[in-house]
């Protein structure tokens, strides 16, 4: 869309941004989180297939030159996972063939269950990959930086500087390569990278000096709030200890352990919010929230709530062991997972 007025590299660069998605970045985050959590929870291949369809539907139609060959990669993952489980796991009842049991590791029965288990897991990994590739294709990196919590303000500036300078550094690399090529330099061995890499590093550091001077001149880091850090440090320490202790305690006392984890996590989130409020940010031309965004967020949350209903939740889990059987399928969960394909509808307009 030409209306986007951000600084953008020329189209010839491999880093040229994609056309923007119609959905808000925050809506994409909710969608990707819900779908990822459901993917990791549901070990049932029928549901995983539905989730995979949702992830594939949300892929960006045209993408930059960095796109992974998704389907090829997916089949490699699934094949690898099936072969791995067939080789290593010798449990199950439908035996395909046997190798002498005294052979280390590979000896024993080769079962259909193990292969099925491998395929299910491969499918799961592939779904996660497709899901996050859809997310990465739809949300621009500048939007992602804006999502960085305000508590990490300085690191956000680091990321912003880096992302701003990547296209420039890439052009600089090409300029240095051209200059060296004119001198008759050719890249053959490892050492031939020296006349390219070292000037790139030097020019980069010179630029860093200039950036630092400009930042100091504009008053960056002029306020020193180190005295306020002690309460934050204490809070972070207590919260993280609670999370870690809760993780162990949950083995013996599940409710108490999870309560501790929840309290610690909430403490960390609260401290992040608090720190974020200390560094308010403004944005030029904020993007307005659209009904499409509400629809995506609402359906994603609804899907998660339905899948978590205690009555139908058991059908999420499935194991091919000890005997391969058809996985259970609950139409309500199927419907809920189908709702996650909604972002895909807004992609092909």
């Amino acid at each position, binding site marked *: 869309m030409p209306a986007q007025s951000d600084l953008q590299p020329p189209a010839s660069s491999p*880093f040229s941004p994609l056309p923007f998605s119609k959905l808000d970045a925050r809506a994409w985050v909710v969608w990707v989180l819900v779908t*990822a959590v459901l993917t*990791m929870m549901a070990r049932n291949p029928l549901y995983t297939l539905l989730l995979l369809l949702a992830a594939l539907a949300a892929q960006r139609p045209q993408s*930059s030159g*960095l*796109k992974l060959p998704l389907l090829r990669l997916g089949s490699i993952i699934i094949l690898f*996972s099936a072969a*791995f*489980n067939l080789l*290593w*796991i010798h*449990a199950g009842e439908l035996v395909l063939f046997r190798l002498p049991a005294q052979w280390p590791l590979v000896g024993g029965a080769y079962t259909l269950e193990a292969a099925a288990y491998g395929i299910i*897991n491969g499918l*799961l*990994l592939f779904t996660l990959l497709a899901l*996050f*590739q859809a997310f*990465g294709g739809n949300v621009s*990196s500048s939007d992602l930086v804006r999502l960085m919590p305000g508590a990490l303000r300085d*690191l956000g500036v*680091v*990321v912003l500087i*880096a*992302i*701003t*300078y*990547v296209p420039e*550094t890439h052009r600089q*690399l090409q300029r240095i390569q051209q200059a060296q090529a004119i001198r008759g330099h050719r890249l053959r061995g*490892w050492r031939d990278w*020296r006349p390219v890499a*070292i000037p790139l*590093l030097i020019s*980069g*550091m010179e*630029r*860093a*000096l200039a*950036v*630092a001077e400009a*930042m100091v001149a504009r008053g960056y*880091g002029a306020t020193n709030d*180190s005295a306020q850090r*002690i309460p934050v*440090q*204490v809070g*972070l*320490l207590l919260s*993280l200890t609670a999370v*870690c202790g809760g*993780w*162990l305690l949950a*083995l*013996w006392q*599940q409710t108490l352990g999870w309560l501790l*984890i929840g309290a610690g*996590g909430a403490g*960390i989130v609260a*401290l*992040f919010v608090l720190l974020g409020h200390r560094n308010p940010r403004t944005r030029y031309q904020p993007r307005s929230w659209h009904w499409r965004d509400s629809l995506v967020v609402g359906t994603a949350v609804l899907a998660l709530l339905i899948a978590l209903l205690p009555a139908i939740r058991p059908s999420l889990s499935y194991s091919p062991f000890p005997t391969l059987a058809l996985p259970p399928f609950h139409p309500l969960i199927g419907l809920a997972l189908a709702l996650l394909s909604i972002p895909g509808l807004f992609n092909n307009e």
Partner: protein
Amino acid sequence: MLQTTTQRTLSTLLYLVAGLTGLLAFAAPFLTPHLLNLVQQTGATSPTPYRPDAPLVTSLLLLLSLAVLLVEVQGQAVSAKIVAALGVLVAVTAVLRFIEVAIPGPGGLSPIFAPIILAGFVFGARFGFLMGTMTLLVSALITGGVGPWLPYQMFAAGWVGLTAGWLPKPRSPKVQITLLASFGFLWGLLFGAILNLYFWPFLNDGSLQSWQPGLSLAATLGRYASFYAATSLLWDIGRGLGNAVLILALGYPAIQVLVRFRDRFQFRRN
């Protein structure tokens, strides 16, 4: 920035707890059989078995400890110079990473580790940690590689830079480069071994352990070693060799440049 003793103690404690939590999250697949045995021995029975190495749980643990670590390191190490130097160095490294994506080298060869190691070595452990985490974050943002694996990659790459800052600083350039090259080779292997742990519980799931309730730590480690040797060793040797060769070829002039700029920046080594 002057620090009081309280702040320093608190900060050390934070590093310890966050480091321990991260380590537990990474090592959960190995610890789980042990922990479950322990639970059985103490006679506690819960109606639904809880698996401490479930990917959702360990991801949460890792994400929280990473967030805490980043806030703490940022609060200590930050100034306009460091922010600018980090940003530009990360940009240079991310461009190198792009070359890697475009022209796949042999095995797990990746040019991003050598700059992280060199930066940690010259600018100190905290800078190295931030350089590692930020490099992985930025290159993931650029190549669209954001995913549940990202916190694991950030943590592991942060450790690469952190430990590089702890290395001794021998005077002779030859000893220095040999040390850094072997360090890079070792981390090439270690990085692969650590990152496999992210998806290993998927491949080698708990349902397996219900048939072998007494599986010990050593047995799990043995299983993992065989898995590693079969799937990742060659790939990771490629990465380790790539690191070593890159450091041997470019390390010394790069260190000279970084040291010169460190003096011009008037960095204090922290």
